[in-house]
């Protein structure tokens, strides 16, 4: 009984302590940090969808790309116009047949560990990426035959075929220090003598020479990077001393952090309502800018009834694009064709569908399925992980009802979409997906969207399997002359529109709330490097508060 009395007393004590601690304003401030950062330290904190991979041969998603460009250097650096500037390479030339590319390097570039960046590190980084086959390897696989270093400051790539986008694709070849990586391999591993090729080490460390270096990386929480003062590039006068990528997209958390001055820029996944609330906060604005991402309704061209072009055209005419655009952030525009308008090689004269119910009915009348619409319901799969997609699916359903087409809206998890779109039999009539171009060139997107090689992947539910189209895409991508290549891209867009394989809803506007009162965010000024992750290239962002 005595024990019970003690227990009761403890319970009361705990309860009272809990209530007092939670309900009463503390008379003392929270405990002082043991190592408080100096007040003059500039910190840039951005929320991200997690996880993030900082191994240059593994990461390729949004947060990973944003991290990699801050930790590693590349041979060339992308420009806001969609081209490239010299970076680690100060010059380059290509052979007459377009199969050999030679780059001459700047001297004296130092990795974060102090050793010098040389050509062998670049050859190593390319070979490592190709052997691992993950991350951005798909950009180079099938194109790059070999990477060698004739001397310390010259690196040479032999290509299997000429490539018009090879130069721009090098912005995804992040250069790692060969010695540091190989000193930290774990053996045995899946890569023979190379053990694990340093994958375990590079999970939480960097081996780069970029403007920032990893300071702390608790995997599920955040990535903290600190400024590398010996970086060879130029910093904004108020560039952050520390950059922290925080792994959360939960709207209530993000909003709270923003209001407390503990977050400078939000992730791009905040719902419209959350962005509007953030926009109303004092000192907070929303930066909105066009991206290389387009929202598609991918129609299966081999499965009844969407295998019939008149049926597809009827749906394209029946859809209300204006209403669809109105559901997005102000300033969003209807897509003009198969590639976003800011993509180099976009065809401004391409045919664009508008809602016209008379034309829709005319097209439907030409379809063999016109008299049996009840027997051919159309399944639209939208991705459960992106709840906002449902409203467009419901709009589509309502629009199609206007011409008598029955639409079944199906919420489908992303993992299931990846699986079902891998097979022509299991792919649904329509899948709604955002697809991004890897590079600001029309060809890079057209290849992953419409080439037959991409048919068994999530980036093409259309199953076009069109040899002529494949030939046109390959021909354009191997054309080294820029103007000629762009002309071919334009022809490609006309060809695709004639097939009407997809509905092109809108070019995605990336929206991010940011502390406009103390952050100089170039993207908000319209200075956007149109490549995934590059808007968070921290050396160009200024921070003067909070």
């Amino acid at each position, binding site marked *: 009984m005595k024990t*019970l009395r003690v227990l*009761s007393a*403890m*319970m*009361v*004590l*705990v*309860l009272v302590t*809990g209530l007092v*601690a*939670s309900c009463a*304003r503390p008379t003392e401030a*929270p*405990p*002082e*940090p*043991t*190592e408080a*950062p100096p007040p003059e330290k500039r910190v840039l904190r951005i929320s991200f969808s*997690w*996880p993030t*991979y900082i191994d240059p041969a*593994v990461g*390729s*998603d949004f947060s990973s790309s944003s991290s990699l460009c801050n930790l590693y250097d590349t041979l060339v650096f992308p420009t806001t116009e969609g081209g490239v500037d010299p970076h680690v390479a100060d010059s380059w030339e290509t052979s007459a047949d377009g199969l050999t590319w030679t780059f001459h390097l700047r001297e004296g570039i130092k990795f974060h560990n102090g050793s010098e960046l040389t050509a062998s590190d670049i050859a190593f980084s390319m070979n490592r990426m190709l052997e*691992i*086959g*993950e*991350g951005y*390897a*798909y950009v180079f*696989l099938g194109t790059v035959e070999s990477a060698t270093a004739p001397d310390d400051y010259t690196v040479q790539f032999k290509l299997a075929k000429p490539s018009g986008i090879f130069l721009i694709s090098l912005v995804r070849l992040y250069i790692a220090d060969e010695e540091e990586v190989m000193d930290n391999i774990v053996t045995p591993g*899946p890569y023979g003598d190379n053990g694990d090729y340093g*994958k*375990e080490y590079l999970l939480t460390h960097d081996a780069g020479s970029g403007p920032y270096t990893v300071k702390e990386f608790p*995997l*599920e*929480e955040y990535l903290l990077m600190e400024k590398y003062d010996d970086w060879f590039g130029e910093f904004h006068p108020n560039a952050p001393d520390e950059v922290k990528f*925080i*792994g*959360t997209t*939960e709207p*209530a*958390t993000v*909003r*709270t*952090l923003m209001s*407390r001055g*503990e977050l400078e820029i939000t992730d791009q996944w905040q719902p419209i309502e959350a962005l509007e609330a953030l926009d109303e906060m004092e000192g907070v604005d929303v930066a909105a800018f066009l991206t290389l991402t387009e929202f598609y309704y991918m129609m299966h061209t081999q499965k009844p009834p969407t295998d019939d072009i008149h049926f597809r055209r009827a749906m394209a005419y029946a859809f209300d694009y204006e209403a669809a655009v109105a559901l997005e952030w102000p300033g969003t525009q209807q897509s003009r064709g198969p590639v976003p308008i800011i993509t180099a090689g976009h065809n401004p004269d391409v045919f664009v569908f508008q809602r016209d119910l008379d034309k829709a009915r005319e097209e439907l009348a030409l379809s063999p399925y016109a008299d049996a619409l009840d027997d051919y319901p159309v399944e639209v799969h939208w991705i459960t*992980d992106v709840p906002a997609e449902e409203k467009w699916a419901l709009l589509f359903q309502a629009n199609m009802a206007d011409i008598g087409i029955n639409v079944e809206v199906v919420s489908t*998890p*992303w*993992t*299931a979409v*990846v*699986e*079902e779109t*891998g097979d022509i039999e299991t792919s649904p009539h329509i899948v709604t997906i955002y697809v991004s171009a890897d590079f600001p060139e029309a060809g890079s997107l057209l290849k992953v969207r419409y080439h037959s090689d991409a048919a068994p*992947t*999530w980036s093409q539910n259309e199953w076009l399997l069109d040899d002529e189209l494949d030939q046109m895409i390959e021909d354009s991508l191997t054309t080294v002359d820029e103007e000629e290549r762009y002309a071919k891209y334009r022809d490609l867009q006309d060809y695709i529109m004639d097939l009407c394989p997809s509905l092109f809803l809108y070019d995605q506007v990336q929206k991010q709330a940011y502390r406009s009162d103390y952050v100089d965010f170039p993207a908000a000024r319209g200075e956007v490097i149109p490549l995934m992750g590059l808007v968070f290239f921290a050396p160009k962002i200024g921070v003067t508060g909070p």
Partner: protein
Amino acid sequence: MGFITFLVRRILHSIFVLLGLSIVIFIISRIMPGNPARMAVGPRAPQYVIDEMSRLMHLHEPLHVQYYYWLRDALHGDFGTSLVTRRAVADDMKEFFPATLELTLFAGVIMAGGGIFIGILSAQHKDKWIDNVLRLVSYLGVVTPSFIFAIFFLLLFGMALEWMPTMSRLSPGVSPPRTITGLITVDSLLAGNLTAFLDALWHLILPGIALAMGGLAQESRITRSSMSDNLTKDYIASARSLGIPERVIMRRFLLKPSLIPTVSILGLDFAGTMANAFLVEFIFNWPGSSSYGYSAMLRKDLNAIAGVVLTMGVVFIVVNVLVDIVVGLLDPRIRLAPQRGE
């Protein structure tokens, strides 16, 4: 002796429960949509890389063979590599599980202390205004999911009033203590680092209370109900007729038997809290194993799913055995009752 036999039997049963759990979770994780090899190497990885990953994961083998490989490694403490974090699941669990354990222990203390205290208070003032108010609050606690409390606390105490920290286990700049148990409050006390201890405690309050609210309400309702029942028993009337003071009756004759159902439910609530903490962990960016398990589910991270579920299963079983012991201590009929066959 009977009680020890009972416990041994419970522990032996637990092993079979774990084995059954491992089979169920293995099958569920395998039939979930999505190719885990593709998820592991990224959606645009070439086919040969996916095939190689499938081979490494034994995905080309029949299900029972896959289970054999998986169980063999699991018995050696090797749950394989997480497809999300890309490191050993065992390492992940070592890092993330203590965070969840610390949070749920804190919530458990609030549930037990607060629930029993409120229950007693309600029973003592049965059908008076204080009882009515506490019952109303309890109903609210039971019907409101913990994540609603989490968002409410975050917006009120974190954003509007700015009294409390809103994310992570420690403030930026506070040096974490050397990891011994992984529970920062405990490790910081062991290291004599009072600043880290207070800061960790400070960070526990909002997510801990949010997590505890459902259980707290449940415990208070059960304690009240149990005490109310016991109040009508003959032995209480007898005690009153003998002139024993009400305070003594309450403490000596009423509280102990009334706590038995509360303790039983408390065990279940505690284990359930641990498994269901993922939304609260997400909201407070708490690096725990619940949110880790949730991410694993979304990404079809088979090894991590199995690791998390089995760990939670072990916790569930351990807590239930502990509850049996406590209930046995509280109720002699249980610990002294002869077991079947004796």
